[in-house]
Every structure is written in structure tokens, then in C-alpha cells.
């Protein structure tokens, strides 16, 4: 029996007894069941297992403290009505916000934070950590930490772009389908049914196998982007102009210009293979967004105030903008977070398979793949980028969970 084990059980049992004495029912249940589990774990796994439990508990405690402090910090700097909302946030949500905040900072200021460039070879392959390299080197001798920081920028930016595109198309189609109904609604709903009946990863692989090769060039991606923007824009134009011919002419002209500018801007920001990836993701996830938006907007559209506005002769665009959107923001924002998680995991998965973001761009998914061999030597290096992926997704999910709880108002 080491001192550690004695200390471990003393602490746990002492805390359980205190909780029981002060009638903290849930705390006692948790602590005491942990004690019971520890007995079994200690017998099976020995001291090492108990040590893992202790370390995890310590980490949990630390993150709880960070979350608590971060929430108080946010409450202090936020404007009054937002502070009131924040006060209701559980610690998990605060933790989520903290992680998102950290990743955002790392991504935005990557070149200043990272000590080395993302493709800079500075030592031998798989060199261990030293005072220069916080996390050691990867398979080509590049600094892991720097690549992790740059990865935050590349992976997240890509996922964000994909989510925004998917969301714009899906949400617009959903809002329009809910307001206008009829054949338009039917056609879009059936189309999204078809797309959704192909598993997302499989569909992504299929599309990447087609567009991943020599088609990933500037011209193709420009036209694909323009096409995507035109489809999205057509929805807006049809809602704004409705039956006016003049409206259509002007709308289409404006749309063509906007689409071209958008495609050009995207080409400056991303390289062609990344654009293909973004578009693939957008095509796969927009039906999901469509379905949810259609459902949310569908609940609003049956309200009498929409009927009143329709009978007044209001245009579809007014209905969407002034009547429906303000009443569906909360679920849509939560859905955006959820979609981001899906997109982010899909892109990470594709990169892990070597079919997503291409080297030498630093990216969390491909970093796992590149260093995977180390795992068989008991080295946790490949787990670090994988953990980063998990951490960010968990963080977003925690925040979304809180928002969903608030927006549904359910007491479940």
C-alpha cells in the first residue's frame, strides 16, 4: 500500500462522509459510487488505475475552475442583458466557450503564437520534446506545437467556410419552402431526401474521387463556386422579385456579379483542392440544414400572424425577413453549432484518410495520420491533434446543448 493509495481512499471516503453529513444528496451519491468503483478498479488495475482516476479528477477540477472563472469574466465584461443570459450557463457551457475562445485566438494569431512556420523542418524526424519544441517533432522534423496552432487556423477555417455555405443554402431553401409550400417545397424535400440517404462520409468519398484529381484546378473551382452561389442567389432573387419581370432581370444581373466576386474572393482565401472540399461538405450538409429549417419555419408559418401578413399582400421576402426569421433565430443558431460539429468531424475524418486537406498544410486530421505509427511505441503524439479535434467538438456541443435547452424551454 503506497501513501498515494491511502491518501486516495482517505480523501474520497472523507468527502463522501462530509457530503452525507451535510445532506448533499447528489454529491454524496457521486462520491460514494466513485469510491465503490475505485475499490474494483484498484483491485483490477492496481495503483496505476487509481492514479489515472486521480489525475482525471484533478483535470476535471481544474477545468471546472477555469470554466467558472471564465464565466464570471464574461459576465463582467458583457453588456447587462447578455450577462443575465450568461449567468444561466452551466459550467460545461462555460468550458465550451473557453475552449472556443482559445482556439479562435490560436487560429487568428497563429503566425505570432507559433514559434516556427507550419512547413518549416527544424530537427530530425520524431525528435522528442525539448526546450525548443514543446511537443516534439513530427515525421518530417517539423515542430508539432507550431503545426497544432496553424492547424487550428486551417482546419477550423475550412470547416467554418463549409458550414456557412451549407447553412446559407439549406436555411434559405428551408425558409422559402416553408413560406411558399406547394411543388417547390415538394421538389426540394424529395431532393434532400435522396442526398440524405447516402451516408455523408461515403458521399464525400465519392465526390472527392471525382473532383479530387486534376479537376481540382482554379477554373473548375471558380465555376463550381459561381454555380453554387448562383443557386443560392436564385432562391433570394425568387423570394424578392416574385412575379415582377423587372425584379428578375435586375436580380439576376446583380446575382451574376455577386457570384463572380464571391468565387474570386474564395479563390484568394483557399486553394482549389480546399474549395472542392468546402463545396463537397456544403452539398452534403445543406439538406440536413434544410430539413431542420423547414421544420422550425414550418412551426412559425402556421401562426395566424403569418396568415395576416400574407392576406395583407406582403412579399415572401418580407415574410421571411421580418416575420419568420426573428422567431426562429434561437434554434437556427444552435443548429449552426451542431452542423459545424458534423462538418468539422467529417473534414477531420477525410483528412485522416488522406483525402481532405493536402500536405504540407498543417491540419489536425492529417497530423493524426502522419504520426499514427508512433502509437505502437506507446507515444501519445498522434493523440494530441486527435484530442484537439475532440476538444473543440465537445466545446461546441456543450454550448449548443445549453442553447437548445434554453430555446426549447423544456424542463427535462
Amino acid at each position, binding site marked *: 500500500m503506497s501513501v498515494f493509495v491511502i491518501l486516495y481512499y482517505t480523501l474520497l471516503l472523507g468527502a463522501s462522509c462530509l457530503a452525507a453529513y451535510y445532506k448533499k444528496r*447528489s*454529491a454524496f*451519491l*457521486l462520491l460514494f459510487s466513485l469510491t465503490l468503483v475505485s475499490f474494483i478498479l484498484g483491485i483490477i488495475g492496481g495503483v496505476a488505475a487509481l492514479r489515472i482516476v486521480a489525475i482525471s479528477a484533478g483535470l476535471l477540477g481544474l477545468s471546472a475552475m477555469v470554466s467558472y472563472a471564465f464565466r464570471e469574466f464574461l459576465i463582467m465584461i458583457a453588456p447587462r442583458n447578455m450577462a443575465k443570459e450568461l449567468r444561466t450557463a452551466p459550467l*460545461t457551457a462555460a468550458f465550451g466557450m473557453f475552449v472556443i475562445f482559445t482556439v479562435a485566438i490560436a487560429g487568428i494569431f497563429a503566425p505570432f503564437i507559433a514559434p516556427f512556420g507550419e512547413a518549416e523542418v527544424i530537427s530530425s524526424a520524431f525528435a522528442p520534446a525539448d526546450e525548443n519544441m514543446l511537443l516534439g517533432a513530427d515525421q518530417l522534423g517539423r515542430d508539432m506545437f507550431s503545426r497544432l496552432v496553424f492547424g487550428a487556423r486551417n482546419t477550423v477555417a475550412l470547416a467554418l467556410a463549409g458550414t456557412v455555405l451549407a447553412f446559407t443554402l439549406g436555411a434559405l431553401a428551408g425558409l422559402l419552402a416553408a413560406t411558399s409550400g406547394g411543388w417547390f417545397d415538394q421538389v426540394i424535400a424529395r431532393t434532400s*431526401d*435522396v442526398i440524405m*440517404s*447516402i*451516408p*455523408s*462520409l*461515403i*458521399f464525400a*468519398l*465519392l*465526390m*472527392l*474521387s*471525382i473532383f*479530387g*484529381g*486534376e*479537376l481540382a484546378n482554379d477554373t473548375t473551382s471558380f465555376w463550381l463556386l459561381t454555380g453554387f452561389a448562383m443557386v443560392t442567389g436564385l432562391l433570394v432573387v425568387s423570394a424578392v422579385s416574385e412575379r415582377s419581370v423587372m425584379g428578375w432581370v435586375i436580380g439576376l444581373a446583380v446575382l451574376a456579379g455577386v457570384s463572380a466576386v464571391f468565387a474570386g474572393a474564395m479563390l484568394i482565401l483557399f486553394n482549389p483542392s480546399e474549395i472542392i472540399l468546402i463545396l463537397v461538405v456544403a452539398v452534403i450538409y445543406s439538406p440536413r440544414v434544410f430539413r431542420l429549417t423547414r421544420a422550425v419555419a414550418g412551426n412559425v408559418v402556421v401562426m395566424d400572424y403569418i396568415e395576416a401578413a400574407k392576406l395583407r399582400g406582403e412579399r415572401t421576402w418580407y415574410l421571411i425577413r421580418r416575420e419568420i426569421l426573428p422567431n426562429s433565430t434561437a434554434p437556427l443558431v444552435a443548429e449552426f453549432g451542431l452542423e459545424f*460539429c458534423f462538418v468539422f*468531424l467529417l473534414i*477531420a*475524418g477525410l483528412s*485522416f*484518410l*488522406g*483525402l481532405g486537406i493536402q500536405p504540407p498544410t498543417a491540419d489536425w*486530421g492529417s497530423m*493524426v495520420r502522419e504520426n*499514427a505509427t508512433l*502509437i*505502437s*511505441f*506507446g507515444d*501519445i503524439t*498522434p*493523440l494530441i491533434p*486527435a*484530442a484537439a*479535434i*475532440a476538444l473543440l*467538438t*465537445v466545446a*461546441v*456541443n*456543450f454550448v449548443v*446543448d445549453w442553447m437548445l435547452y434554453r430555446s426549447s424551454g423544456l424542463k*427535462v
Partner: protein
Amino acid sequence: MGDILGLVAKRLGLGLIILLVISVIIFFMVELLPGDIAQAVLGQGATPENLAALRKEMGLDQPAIIRYLNWLRGAVVFDFGNSIVTGASVADTISERFANTLFLAAYAAVIAVPVSIVLGVLVALARNSIFDRVANVATLTSISSPEFFLGYILILYFSVKWGMFPAIASLSSDMSFGELLNRTFLPALTLVLVVTAHMMRMTRAAIINLLASPYIEMARLKGTPPWKVIVKHALPNAWAPIINVVALNLAYLITGVVLVEVVFVYPGIGQALVDAVSKRDFPVVQACCLIFAATFILLNLAADVGSILTNPRLRHPK
């Protein structure tokens, strides 16, 4: 009963149509390639004569619609032509791997389904307690972790550090069943972890939804003991949502299986698909995609048919 059969038939018909549309998408997407498959096979340096010969051999001189119909006819009897990389029959390469994948998915499902439904119901009954919150955080974490993260953690501990299970799931035909289960334990466990989290959350939501119905309150107010409220009043109505949860998650397994197969170098169809995509072996890609999509649709179909069949309002029409 006419109603219910009609509904089921309608749903089956719809599934068939969707499958047909998807086969069209899968086939004609490849047609989008600049040049054609022959060009892709032979590369940039091919002479026009060679190209023409290969085109004739692969039937590329025929119009696309004819080729699609031929391909579809083949697909129905599990004949997908030959690989353009190895030249071997696609069906031969895939069929054994498909069986392996199904085995892995079934292995995971056998563990995950009962565990997650029981846990989901328990958590739903203890809702808002500390255990519910812990379960909420734990399942959320598990859902958010990519499959390869869980997979490598399991490899690190169970295989490298503690040496309990093999990290590489290499299979051979002369293995005993126990050996097979041991070899494929880690990939199956990875899938179980992800799917259980999903299923628990969905089961919990379904049960809580159910427990809020007025007839459950009525049963309580009739003095029915709690266990009987669950068994007699909640469960008969819970079948539809539970069947839905199970089918949807089995469908989810199919996507998850690709990543897990790559992590554990498992000889399944997912691994074959990934290889084919990076080698641009289109007949294999098409075949794998069609198989995945068909399984996915089938499971969704099963979910819908299941909830139609267990709906008391439909089973006992007016």
C-alpha cells in the same frame, strides 16, 4: 389491415425509387470526369490507338444511358465489372470484405444495442439527477470524439500498454471464432463507444417524451406502481421510437466503420473504398458506394416500417 399493408408497400416503393435515383447519381457522377475512365487508366501519355482499343473493350463507345443500364443489370446480380487498377473482378474483391464489415458491425451492434437501450431507459428514469448530468457530459464527449481518437486511445492502452488485445485486426480463414472475437475486439469496442452514446441519448429523449404523455400521468393517478407504468404503459408505445433509434444507429455504424477499419487496418469494405478513392479505381468506388447506400436505405426503411407496424393506431384501424 389493408391500410397498414398499403403504407408499408408505399414506403418500400419509395425506398426503391430513392435507391434507383442514387444509382443514377453514383453512375453519372463519374461521367463528369474530363475525358473518360480509359483516359484515367492509361494516363496522359496514352496513344489514341490504345485509348480507342481500351474504350471498345470497356464498352465506352456506347452511349452513357446504355452503359448505365448494363451496369445496373450487373449490380442487381452483384456484378460490378473489373477493377481498372488490378483488372480483377470487383465483386470478388469486395464480397469477402463486405462480409467482414458486416461481421464487425454486427459484433458492435450486439454489444451496443442492449447496453445503450438499458442505459438510456435508466438515465431517462433518473432524469435531472447527478447521474443523468454525468451521462449527458460523457455521451456528448463520446459523440464529439472522432472515431480515430477513440480507436488510438484504445490501442494505446489495451494493446500497447496493457497488451490485452491485438492492435491490428488481421484476419485469416482458419481462425477459431473466439480468436476472431479477440482479434476484432478493439475495432468493435470503438464502434460500440460511439454508437452507444448516440443511442443512449436518443433512447433517453424518446422515453422522456413518452413519460410526459397524459396517459402516463393517468396511469400514475390510477395508482399503478412505477415498474408497471413503465412495462405496461410506456413500453408498448416505446417500440416505435426504440426501433427507430436502433435502425438509425445501425445506419450510423456503417459510416463509422470506414474510419475504424482504417485505424485498425481491418480488411473490410470501408478500407477498400478508401484505397479505391485514392487510386481512383472508379468501378470499385461505384460498387462500394452503391453497397453502402443500399444498406443505409434498407436500415432507414426498416426503421420506418417498424414504426408503422408497431403503431397501435395503425394496427387497429377504425
